């Protein structure tokens, strides 16, 4: 009985560890960063904003988000949030 409980707890521990690792990997993988720059045509003065999304599921999805921003389809990019810090390299 003790052995059975030990095996069960080991299985549960391993499962939970796996789940945590998997979600953490997904977060890293899915963070889609984009820099938006506003340029004043009179002076060339630049203003930068950094945006990120954790909802994008692939590189292609991330690229699509940027394409939507580029085309002004802002309704399709509502998952992007402004980053309070400069985007990571």
């Amino acid at each position: 009985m003790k052995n059975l409980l030990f095996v069960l707890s080991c299985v549960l521990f391993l499962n939970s560890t796996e789940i945590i690792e998997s979600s953490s990997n997904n977060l890293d993988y899915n963070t889609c960063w984009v820099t938006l720059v506003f340029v004043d045509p009179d002076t060339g003065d630049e203003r930068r904003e950094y945006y990120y999304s954790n909802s994008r599921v692939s590189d292609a999805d991330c690229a699509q988000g940027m394409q939507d921003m580029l085309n002004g389809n802002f309704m399709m990019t509502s998952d992007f949030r402004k980053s309070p810090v400069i985007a990571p390299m």
Partner: protein
Amino acid sequence: MKMKNIFFYLIISIFSLGFSQDKVVTYEYEVNYNLGRPLYKTGYLLSLDDNVRYNTTKTIFLKDFKKYDIDSETGNPQISFLGAGNGSENVVYLGINDSIISTKSLGREVLLIKEKIPIQIWELTGIKKLINGYQCVELKTQFRGRKYKAYVDLSIPFRYGPWKFNSLPGLAIKIIEEENKLIWTLKAVSKRDLDVVEDFIFKQNDYLSSLREVSLKEYVELYDNTKGGSDVLFSKLPREYKKDKSSTSQFKRGGFELKYEWEEN
């Protein structure tokens, strides 16, 4: 014989009309700004009928303006938005009521700003320099948060310079911002046909009257509230961004004018 004489006088009259046509002295400046994205343009300064006019060609960025690029700082994709207008500047001194009107791009709109002529006080530094063949004296001033040096030829009396520079003791040959971010250099002095200049002024007035006019204080308020117009361009971005108040307090003015007279203690 009579016919020949008439023809001769007609030709002479046409030629003399052509040569006696009124001309307007125009000062041509090379304009270089480096406030983020380096650019250049040509500025034209002239005086006609009590008004002094300064206008520039459209902006030419030193590097091609790409909407989609790679952010050189982070390596992430970068999307660039350009504000309204083509970068051409218009400044008109209205001699009659001591005021200036000028254009400024703000977000999706070009505004017409009206203000009293901001008088500048220039001080001689004691330095003399030969610039582009002109014997110049160096003067310095502070204007709206930036420090400038002007190299002026005292033998040519013209108190106005490019952009909003005024109260100069002679023709400005070169004006440099302290950090070399803004430079105006006289390239040529030419005489242009009055009818060509008048045609330009007619079209310019037409353009200026099509713009929304605001006072300088109204403009500054709009500028600050929209973070230099960028909020207007980004206004369709996620709601969270619009609700973000923290960035408003961190906002620092850019462009030419960083601080105004009524803000100075």
